[in-house]
């Protein structure tokens, strides 16, 4: 029966194994971890997963947390590109939901609510999440003229104490 219970040597070796793996991970990704704990954006620009076929379609510019409040005061509208369930659970206060996965079915309705000259700031889950960039390219192609992407997204906003709301209303 003793063979089925962990020995102290097994537990000690398991601990060493974890420490070796942590050291390897931290040494290979130290910049990523250091920047995130220092409050810097570890990801410079997220790569979109779709490519614009039309050269005239622009690429949405990224903005950071520090610029966000100033832009919102200037009338920019927040758009949440995450799945609607995540939006309903919690979203940035004042944001409208337009999930990238449902853009084909919801875009017509969205365009009736949000005029093409409305300046937009899109966000998703941060961490290089490409959904907001992909949605931004789609909205630029649809005729929206001012589209920005908040790269830190929902997690950074939440952890920096930004105002959040739950439910279907902005």
């Amino acid at each position, binding site marked *: 029966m003793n063979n089925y219970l*962990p020995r102290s040597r097994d537990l000690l*070796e398991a601990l060493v194994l974890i420490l070796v793996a942590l050291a390897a991970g931290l040494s290979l990704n130290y910049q990523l971890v250091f920047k995130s704990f220092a409050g810097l954006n570890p990801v410079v620009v997220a790569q979109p997963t779709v490519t614009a076929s039309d050269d005239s379609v622009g690429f949405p510019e990224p903005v950071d947390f520090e610029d966000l409040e100033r832009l919102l005061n200037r009338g920019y509208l927040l758009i949440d590109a995450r799945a609607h369930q995540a939006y309903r659970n919690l979203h940035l206060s004042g944001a409208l939901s337009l999930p990238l996965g449902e853009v084909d079915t919801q875009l017509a309705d969205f365009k009736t609510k949000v005029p093409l000259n409305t300046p937009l700031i899109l966000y998703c889950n941060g961490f290089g999440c490409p959904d907001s960039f992909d949605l931004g390219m789609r909205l630029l192609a649809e005729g929206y003229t001012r589209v920005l992407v908040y790269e830190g997204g929902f997690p950074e906003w939440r952890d*920096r104490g930004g105002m959040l709301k739950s439910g279907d209303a902005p």
Partner: protein
Amino acid sequence: MMKKFFYHGCRLLLAGVFLYAGYLKGVDPVAFAGQVAAYDLLPYAFNYLVAATLPFVELLCGALLLINRRVKPALLVLFALNGVFILALTSLLARGLEIDCGCFHPGGAEGDAATSPQLALLRDLGLMLAILGAWWFKPVNTPEVADD
């Protein structure tokens, strides 16, 4: 003979699963951090810390299981790790969040490629059985015990 067969079967299955999962997550830690963040359990920077280190725990344990060395410590670590995965998935279900588990698609998957929390939970429970099986059926005369 049968015990040995089950032991090596469980060991190699776990080695393959965790080497594959660790590799996919390790090559794109930023995308994996996003998937960890989608669980909505950790503060911002800690998602990056988990994404930077967890794949290496999986890779190291998978490699040890593959070469049949330090199997029991590797199984202990995987038992704890899988326990954490099961708790995280249970919390997803409790909160009604239907996201891709991020287990084998570090950037998240959509449509048919996505793995629901329910399916991921079942898979993790299966892996837990394989971990317990490898532990239970491990012959006493394997190299690391013979070294004692």
